[in-house]
């Protein structure tokens, strides 16, 4: 009995799996240009902001977003990846620029937005620089949802008590850190989980933007002597006591408020968190663009992070999603969004509510600054995962950087070998 049944069960299981597999594919585009658009995002905390924007989009474009927010980024990634295999692929969803977006574009899963970009750039709604992050093989995909510049936030009270000014050179920044340490105040925030990369990014790009880009493309090895030297600088700073306790679980915004550290290197979305912690923009805290490590650089490199809004190629709401994307780029939409979210706007014609962010936006788009992709988006995911872990381990136990760099490079070697 037994031996005859097992193949039967396997055959049944295989039959069911074939049946399930054949369900995949995706729906037909229904061609609607108005109505309710299903929108998925991993920024669950922003859901009220998207809802707030509905009033504007209803009157401008007759489209209402039905937002589903995920709060776990990994779970969200897996959900989106799987959704392309079903007829429920999203009409609009948020994603990451860099290799993760390239992966989707390569599989022809994303609707092209070249026309939307051409119109937006021609109307002066977006800087052509930003277009590069959304261009693959000369065509554009997705539109920018948000943009953030990575700057240094500081506790204004501490700076005033110590008689400190915003630094304009790297040497001045170092002097500030040294003075604060002497007074028993920890200069910088750091953590050994997830956000372990900002200081590395700052040191490498600020020393040599070419070197930084080389890491992202695989032309420069993590074990390169120039990288080792930068890591040694980082270690020396750690040994001098310039960084906060890596194991602390205090919320970074609260830490800055209570003076656990004087400065924190974060994206310009951090205003929202600091306001939430009860600090007043311009009064309790302020920000400055971090000077380049290498004073000979003509332009100061500034890390920029931008998250895309994408439309799935096989979604039944493809036309609706693209119509919304087009509206999204307009100054009306971006003014309303900036007000709802309290963030920097990528559209220079939009009005930004927070004067500090308004000023930052105009400063960094000027000629003295050079925007580069944040490490998190610039680095291929498998290398990024290992690098974040290794930087975390290095932050926890600053020492000889070589073993950490070798571990990252081993993963990078594997990755680039696979790409050939």
């Amino acid at each position: 009995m037994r031996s005859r049944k097992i193949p039967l069960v396997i055959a049944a299981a295989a039959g069911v799996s074939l049946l399930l597999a054949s369900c995949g594919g995706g729906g037909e585009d229904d061609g609607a240009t108005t109505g309710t658009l299903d929108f998925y995002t991993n920024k669950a905390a922003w859901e009220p902001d998207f809802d707030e924007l509905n009033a504007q989009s209803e009157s401008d474009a007759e489209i209402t977003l039905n937002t589903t927010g995920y709060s776990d980024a990994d779970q969200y990634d897996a959900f989106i990846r799987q959704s392309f295999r079903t007829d429920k692929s999203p009409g609009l969803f948020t994603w990451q620029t860099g290799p993760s977006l390239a992966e989707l574009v390569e599989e022809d899963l994303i609707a092209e937005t070249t026309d939307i970009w051409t119109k937006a750039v021609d109307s002066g709604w977006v800087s052509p620089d930003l277009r590069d992050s959304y261009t693959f093989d000369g065509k554009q995909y997705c539109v920018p949802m948000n943009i953030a510049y990575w700057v240094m936030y500081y506790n204004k009270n501490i700076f005033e008590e110590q008689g400190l000014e915003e630094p304009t050179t790297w040497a001045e920044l170092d002097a500030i850190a040294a003075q604060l340490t002497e007074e028993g105040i920890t200069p910088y925030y750091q953590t050994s989980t997830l956000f372990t990369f900002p200081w590395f990014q700052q040191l490498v790009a600020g020393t040599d933007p070419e070197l930084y880009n080389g890491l992202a493309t695989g032309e420069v090895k993590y074990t390169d002597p120039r990288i080792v030297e930068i890591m040694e600088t980082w270690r020396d700073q750690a040994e001098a006591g310039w960084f906060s306790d890596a194991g602390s679980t205090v919320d970074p915004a609260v830490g800055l408020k209570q003076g656990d550290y004087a400065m924190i290197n974060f994206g310009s979305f951090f205003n929202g968190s600091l306001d939430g912690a009860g600090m007043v923009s311009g009064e309790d805290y302020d920000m400055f663009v971090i000077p380049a490590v290498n004073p000979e650089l003509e332009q100061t490199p500034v890390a920029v992070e931008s998250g895309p809004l994408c439309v799935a190629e096989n979604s039944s709401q493809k036309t609706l999603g693209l119509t919304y994307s087009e509206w999204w780029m307009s100054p009306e939409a971006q003014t309303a969004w900036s007000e709802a979210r309290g963030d920097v706007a990528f559209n220079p014609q939009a009005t930004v509510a927070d004067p500090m962010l308004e000023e930052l936006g105009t400063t960094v788009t000027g000629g003295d600054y050079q925007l580069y992709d944040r490490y998190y988006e610039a680095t291929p995911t498998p290398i990024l995962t290992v690098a974040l872990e290794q930087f975390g381990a290095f932050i926890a136990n600053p020492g000889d950087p070589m073993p950490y760099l070798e571990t990252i490079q081993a993963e990078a070697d594997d990755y680039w070998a696979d790409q050939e």
Partner: protein
Amino acid sequence: MTSDKTPTRRFPKERDPYRWSARGFIAPSVLVVAVLLYLPLLWTTFISFTEYNGLGDPEWIGVENYVEMFDDPEFLGSVLNTLLWVVGTLIVPVGIGLGVALLTWNLAGGTWLRLPFLIPYALSGIGVGVIWSFILGGGGALDQALAAFGIADTPRWLVDAPLNTVVMILATAWQGVGVNALLFTIGLQSIPKEPLEAARMDGATGLRLFRSVLWPMLRPLTAVVVGLSIVASLKTFDIVQGMTKGGPGRDSETLALTMYKETFVNSEYGLGSAVAVFLTIVTLVASILYLRQQLSSKHGV
């Protein structure tokens, strides 16, 4: 099957009239089991032999994922951490649980002594992780409490390995002692009175009573508790994810975390599935070997 052959063979020519309808009735359950239990297992095994990023189609690469897995020195670290979890949860939550049960089972009001241990069991593992990371984080509640006693130079609980794994096992114990104590108490209360009285008449008390009477008679229950503990510790995930996320670096990563990271963070579904298959085999082999050895009749009292 052999025992019920005789009655059905009484009329060898006559077919069982209910044969097809019986199959019809069991078909839905067989299908549900096949789709929900066997199919995912087969699918995961298949994916583990492919390169797959969750998009497009899996590409067959043979055992390459397994080679890559065993080649990774950090994977060995994961295996060792997982072993530490197995041993640690046997010694601490199971051991203390047994202790609590032994000390309270025949006391008047023993229930009230055991009850507080059960309260943390109502929490989810992630919740326990978050709470304990506030206690054990740098400058957290424990450090502050120690500072009040003048101990300033505290260890970095969650940063240094293997200390971080050890303190996480203790956090698990905080949650798990109550349930183990409860199970052992049930076991102790189900021991018949006669042999106990006989042993007491013979003058056995304390350790001697425990070693020669209670422990052997508890064995069936111990086997289940230890078996469950081994399986639970092999798949440890939530507490670690809640407290250190496997870090710093991969110092406190367990196999379940490695599986999760490869699959859902790196989108290397093939490699993640290979870790899953490895973990399944280890868990199966461990439970079969253990239960077979423990539940065999030679240990009967």
